[in-house]
């Protein structure tokens, strides 16, 4: 039995946690809808579930300003909803309908875009976020806009040569980049230790001169605080790096049964579910479980309604393929 603390710090912590809990729950509810679409083969492309990583995505994206740039990664959707994107336009992309942000070019998370909220898209080749984020940060710095360019990527993509090229230049030019490495230890079926000779990515960024933090990616509050500091550093002209040690609870894509992984490891990962952990912490801080149930229920209702709106939007016709090649 925990009682509410009168301490203001704890009250603030609880408010922040509640906000992060809500964003994590929204991202998960959205992914639940997408998983359902994949299982019923309504959506036939690849989806890379973010289960286990929603908390850190929510924790970083809620620390960004609405006009800060975001280059999200392929694993999950919480980046987008936490940055303020309308789930109807995300799901419109999954359904390949005109309501989607790409107006029917979808489908999938890969290229959701919302420049009004700084969401500048995602490349189909991993590690391409490094030079692009450096360029966005350069534009912000040159124009004196004060925006940071946040880029998410896995530990796998951190091995790309683009990391080094962009990292050295970001340091040389004092670019406001915030790079967030979601280190879940697995690049599809390759264990990071086996293919990179280390489980730790942050030393690379530190060697480049980045402000570097390593954080438990399942602890939303810790990630949020790290993100606030990283963003502060970046706005001051010091490129910043966060390595969030996280868990990939599901396979690389929906339907990947992960035969290459130890079952006990997956079971252990499930106990480190960020939504579960944030909920436990909130209850410890005196939150009523009914409030948490209600947040999750609202998230489900929101995403189901968004799915209904998206799936009833018109499909593009064949002429759509010719639109938008040229400005």
């Amino acid at each position, binding site marked *: 039995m925990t009682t509410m603390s009168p301490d203001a710090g704890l009250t603030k912590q609880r408010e922040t946690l509640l906000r992060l809990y809500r964003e994590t729950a929204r991202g998960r509810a959205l992914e639940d809808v997408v998983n359902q679409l994949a299982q019923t083969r309504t959506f036939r492309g690849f989806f890379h579930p973010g289960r286990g990583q929603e908390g850190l995505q929510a924790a970083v994206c809620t620390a960004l300003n609405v006009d800060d740039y975001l280059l999200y990664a392929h694993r999950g959707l919480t980046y987008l909803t936490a940055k303020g994107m309308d789930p109807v336009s995300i799901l419109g992309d999954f359904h390949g309908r005109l309501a989607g942000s790409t107006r029917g070019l979808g489908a999938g998370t890969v290229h959701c875009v919302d420049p009004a909220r700084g969401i500048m898209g995602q490349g189909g080749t991993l590690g391409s976020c490094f*030079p692009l984020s450096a360029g966005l940060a350069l534009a912000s710095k040159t124009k004196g806009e004060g925006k940071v360019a946040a880029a998410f990527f896995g530990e796998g993509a951190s091995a790309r040569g683009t990391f080094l090229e*962009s990292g050295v230049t970001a340091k040389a030019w004092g670019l406001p980049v915030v790079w967030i490495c979601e280190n879940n230890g697995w690049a599809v079926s390759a264990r990071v230790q086996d293919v990179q000779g280390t489980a730790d990515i942050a030393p690379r960024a530190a060697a480049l001169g980045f402000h570097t933090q390593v954080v438990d990616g399942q602890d939303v509050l810790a990630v949020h605080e790290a993100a606030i500091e990283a963003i502060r550093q970046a706005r001051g002209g010091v490129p910043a790096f966060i390595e969030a040690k996280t868990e990939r609870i599901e396979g690389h894509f929906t339907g990947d049964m992960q035969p290459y992984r130890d079952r006990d490891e997956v079971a252990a990962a499930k106990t480190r579910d960020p939504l579960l952990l944030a909920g436990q912490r909130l209850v410890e801080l005196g939150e009523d479980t009914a409030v948490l149930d209600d947040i999750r229920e609202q998230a489900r209702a929101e995403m189901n309604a968004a799915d209904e709106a998206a799936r009833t939007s018109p499909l593009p016709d064949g002429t759509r393929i010719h639109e938008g090649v040229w400005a």
Partner: protein
Amino acid sequence: MSDKPITYAWAINHALDEEMQRDPDVFLMGQDVGRMGGVFGLTRGLHDKFGGERVRDVSIVEHLVVGGAVGAALGGLRPVAEVQFADFLLLAGDESFHKMAKWRYMHGGILTLPMVVRAPCGIQGGVGAEHSQSPEGHYWHTPGIKIAVPSTPADAKGLLKSAIRDDNPVIYFENRRLYRVKGEVSADPELLVPFGQGKVRRVGRDVTIVAWSAMVDAALEAAEILEREEISVEIVDPRTLVPFDMETVSTSVRKTSRLLVLHEASLTMGPGAEIAARAADELFEHLDAPVKRLAGTDNPIPQNMALEQFCYPQTDQIVSTVRDLAKW
């Protein structure tokens, strides 16, 4: 304003200078473009005039040069990135073939990428297989990129200015053999050369040569020789490959009924194949002879300067090919 003869290289410098003066969003980045003024001297004076934040030296980072330009363009700047040799574009393969060409389209056509990559191309000076290529065909095969291939100082300036003002990504292939060629260039900072408008470099009756970049001068030289044999050559310089001005080619071929496509890039699967195929398709009933191609040889370019000349069409080869065509 008076036109005065300046070099192709200096015309590029003037275009950069004027556009940087006009628009504070325009900036340069590349290896040695700053303090040194470019390995070929093309950006001389610009670092002093505009400062290190608008003329940015980089390390050996082609991914960053092209990918960073994509990001900077998305962020509202107008980058003019330079790869030191056109061959090095391939080091930034993902950034050029994918990010630069496809980012706008992949994201529904709602983002714009106003950027230019300057790519010095062409065979000159014994720099070998990885510093001499003309890879415009690689990029013509990639929807989403505009391509400029200027052959004269005036076009070098006017096309670069158009490229910088274009809201689409452009690769600007500047031929190193042309850098010292002089020609009249307008000093008018608003004189642009539009994309997609070819130019008839020489009017003739018997054979049409489509040529661009450094091959235009070779074609002109051949035409002079052929004129003495009473073979009249018309030379069409498309000036940009994307968009491609087929209309000017078509008008010329309807008149001459014979077509030679001439380029420096190697023959097989080269850009001439596309033009020849279009001519065969669209101009079949106007042709009196098979469409011919004369192009670079299908081998890596050796470093020995004595051998370079055998790797791209020489004037005597153009003369004999046109002579054969004229017999039809």
